[in-house]
Every structure is written in C-alpha cells, then in structure tokens.
C-alpha cells in the first residue's frame, strides 16, 4: 500500500515540478519574473500589450531582482525584471532599460529637519549620530530604518553612500517600500529610504512623511533582462515597453520615462 501512495505522490511531485519549468515555448505566451518594483509597471504594460495583440498572454510574477536575473539565465522566465544594472558576473545577459526610479530619504512629517548632507546621512546610518539635536533638530533619538539583505534598494543605497551593511546600526529592518513608509509615518524620529515613486505617491495621498532633497540623485534603471538578443514576441514586448506609447503608465507610477532620463 505504501508503494501505491508513494507512486501517487511521486506522480504529483513530477506534475507540479513540471509546471514550474515547462511553459509554453510558442509565441503566444510570455513569462516575466523578478523585481517587485518593476512588476506593477510591467503588469500594466502587459495588459495594454495584450489588448493590442489578441491571443497573447503575459504572466508577471514578482520575486526580486536577483530572481529575475537568475530566471532569465536559466530560461525559467522569458524576460527577467531587475531594478538595477547588471553587475560584472551577469554581463553575458542582455538588459533593456524601460524607465528610471529614484531612491529617496524619507522622514516623518513632524520632523523639522529639511535637509541632510551625505556625511550626516552616513553618520546617522553608522550610529555616530544618534540624536536629532546633533544635526540641528529637536532632542529626539533617531530611529534608523534599513532594508533587508538582497534588496536592490539596499545595494544602491550602500553603494551611493560608500557604506558596508555590517557597519550600519539599524533600529528597524524592513522588507518592502510600504512597510518602510508605515514605519516612518508612525515614528516621529525615524529616517528611512524607499523608492521615490512609492514615497511620492504616499505623500500625495496624505501619509505623514516627507522626502528629503538629495545633493546627488540616487537613481537606478528599471531593466528587462533576456538571455539572448531578444526575438519574436519578447522583442515586440520590449520595444513596446520602451516606446512612448507607455509613457503615461510610467508616470502614473511615479517613475521617470526614458524620454527624460536626467532628473
């Protein structure tokens, strides 16, 4: 009896394992996986693309930039999504920029501080400055909000400020942008960094946060990744995503379109 159930289980296993890897290789279906920053944008683009190309189905799944790169390389996805440039070990892949996103430092709205220098931000994140009065604010301890490992936002932030993650003295570590915005809006002494798109959207919505102006912009490209030079449906979709036809979608999500890359 055990062997019977084992066979059943193995069959189930093979069926499910199979669906993850085998997807239609025909030219009516595209699978996109990767960055949770790019995914909402890609989803809107995919909807519009499907409308003008009847019979085409585009699946968008999130899982982070690293996953997008890995999936594009292994062929698990036709197109990977990454909210960063490819690094050296990934230079064999092809990246296609569709928009830009910035990272912004955010504070609670009740905080009277209106600007911080790069050195001040470095000192706050490394724990050398622990109270707002040290940078000209009220006597209030600083709550440092940092991102979890593996997020491209964290990598870009570390790179921009020349920091090492093990040197950062964080008080709170968050996962996605929303959690960061909620943490900062609920804590008068908090400082954090999130995607500009998400922060501007929430600020406009009335969430009590404010964005600090940056001396040099902290921006990153939003990329679609392919293993080879794209052809067929993938090529059509990438060209569509880079065209001016989708500018309104990019602006709706507070990203910067390719037409105006310098922000």
């Amino acid at each position, binding site marked *: 009896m055990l062997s019977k159930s084992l066979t059943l*289980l193995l069959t189930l296993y093979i069926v499910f394992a199979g669906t993850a890897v085998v997807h239609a290789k025909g030219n009516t279906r595209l699978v996109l996986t990767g960055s949770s920053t790019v995914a909402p944008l890609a989803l809107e683009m995919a909807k519009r693309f499907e409308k003008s190309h009847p019979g085409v189905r585009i699946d968008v799944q999130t*899982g982070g930039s690293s996953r997008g790169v890995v999936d594009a390389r292994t062929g698990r996805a036709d197109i990977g999504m990454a909210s960063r440039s490819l690094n050296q070990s990934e230079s064999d892949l092809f990246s296609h920029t569709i928009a830009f996103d910035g990272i912004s430092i955010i504070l609670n709205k009740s905080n009277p501080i209106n600007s911080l220098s790069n050195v001040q931000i470095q000192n706050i994140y490394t724990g050398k400055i622990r109270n707002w009065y040290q940078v000209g604010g009220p006597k209030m301890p600083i709550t440092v909000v940092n991102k979890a490992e593996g997020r491209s936002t964290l990598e870009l932030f570390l790179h921009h400020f020349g920091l*090492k993650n093990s040197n950062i003295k964080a008080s709170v570590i968050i996962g996605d942008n929303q959690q960061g915005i909620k943490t900062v809006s*609920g804590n008068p002494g908090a400082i954090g960094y999130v995607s500009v798109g998400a922060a501007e959207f929430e600020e406009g919505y009335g969430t009590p946060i404010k964005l600090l102006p940056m001396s040099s912009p902290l921006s990153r490209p939003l990329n679609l990744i392919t293993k080879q030079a794209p052809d067929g449906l993938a090529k059509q979709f990438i060209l569509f995503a880079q065209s001016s036809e989708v500018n309104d979608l990019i602006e709706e999500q507070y990203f910067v379109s390719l037409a105006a890359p310098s922000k």
Partner: protein
Amino acid sequence: MSEFLSPPKNIDRWLGIGLSMLMGLVALLLILIVAFLASEAWPVIQGDSWARFFNSDGWYPLENKFGLLPMLWATLAVSVGAVVLAFPLGLGSAIFIEYYAPRVIGKPFSSVVTLLAGVPSVVFGLWGLTELVPLINNVHPPGASLLTAILVLTLMILPTISLTSRSALSSLPAHLLQNSAALALSKKSMIVGVLVPTASKGIVGGVLLALVRALGETMAVLMVAGNVVQTPSGLFDPVRVLTANIALEMAYATGEHRAALFASGLLLMVLVICVVWMTSRLSSGEVNGYD
C-alpha cells in the same frame, strides 16, 4: 478496546486499509518536507561549514556571515515571553467561562475568544504596526521591539490556550465535581485543588501547542519586531526571529544565501519537532490527563 468490538467485517477492513494509506501519506509528506529542506540547505551544512551558523558574528549574507544564534535566541525569547503572558490569561478565561460566568456573559465571551482565534495574523500585524509600535515608541524608541512582538503574539495564542484549557476542564467526569461538592469544598479550592490539577495534562498540551504556533508565526512578528539581527538584551530591543528572516530574504536570495535560509528553516523545524515530542510525552497518558 478492540476485543469488545464485533468481528471485523469486510467494510471495516477496507476502511482500515484506506485510513492507514492516508496516514502513510501524511507521514510521508512530513518526511519529504524535512528531506527537501535538508537537501536545499546541504551546500551550507555539509562538512564543517555548518559551524559558521554558530560562530559568525552576525548575519550579513552579502559578506558571507551567517550567524543564526542571535535569531534563535530571539525566536525563543519572543515565543516563551508570549506563552508566559498568555498562559494565566488563557487559563483564567477558561476557568471563568467554565465555572464562574453566568450564561448571558459566558456565551458571548467564549464566542469572542473563538473569534479571536480566527483573526488572520496579518491583521494582528497591521494593528501592531500602526497602533502598538507608535505607543511603545513614546516609551522607548524605536517601538518595534521584542516587547511589541511578545504582546502581539500573546493575543494570537491566547485563544489557543483558552480553548484547549476549556475543553480539558469540560471533559472532566461529572463525579469529580459531585465528590468535591459532597466534601463541601469551596468553589475556589475545588478548582485549584481538584479540577485544574486533574486536567493539567490537557492544559499543558494546549500550552505547548500554543508554543508551536508562536514559534512558527511569521507575518505579525515580521511587522512589529523590528527585524534587526541581534541577541536580545532588553525588552525594547528590536529583534529578528527565524521565520521573519526567511520571509524577508527568501525571494531575494540566491546561492549560499538561499541555502542558509533553508538551513534556518531546518533549525526551526528541529525546534518544533522537539516541542511536539515533549507534548506527546506529556500527554501519553489518558486523554486530558484524567486517569
């Protein structure tokens, strides 16, 4: 018991076979899960590389540091803290519903407790993040802390303890109550001296069940604990538990980092198996401890 049953009929035989097949399937699933975890974690536990989990200073996967100990202590501190708080509350409410509450109050009160058990953990997390964290931040920043996690978890496991304690108490045989009444014991000495001790195995079983739930809780703790990897040294320290570590980083991890997350899952599984083993040893006597 089985010798008092009528001789097995054909249908009984088939039912027995069917049930044992289902049981085998369940057991096999568990074995497969553990095997899967182990095989995914294999690259970082083979040879002596597992030692990194216990002697690295901190968890910085990007810099190849994989210290799990701070998160293990945090997981234990959060879970045990929640059980310590929830136990008197849960047992108290069970005793109240079972022996003190008039019907008009007892019925709605017990359905509130049952309802509390059904609240999704992410809702508890949201409430904790938007209400409890700012409140505790006023006392001691950053607000997201071991204490916040303990308080939210307490609310989540309280119904488990209350419901299991209550069922342990209510399934005590009626003659216990009658005998105690015949001895003219007061209600208090009856409960403290006879009923609760007799039901203790069932109550402790419920507490361990709650502990398992606390160990495995992810979403709510992730939202309120602060998630800083450090060994907790005070109630206001932000901490990261093992489950939150997996949820925060799994989608973004590749290579050794990913394998290390599977290893932390394996560690959690071992912890839960230990607790369940303790539970089964404790309740190996009669159901609800009455013997």
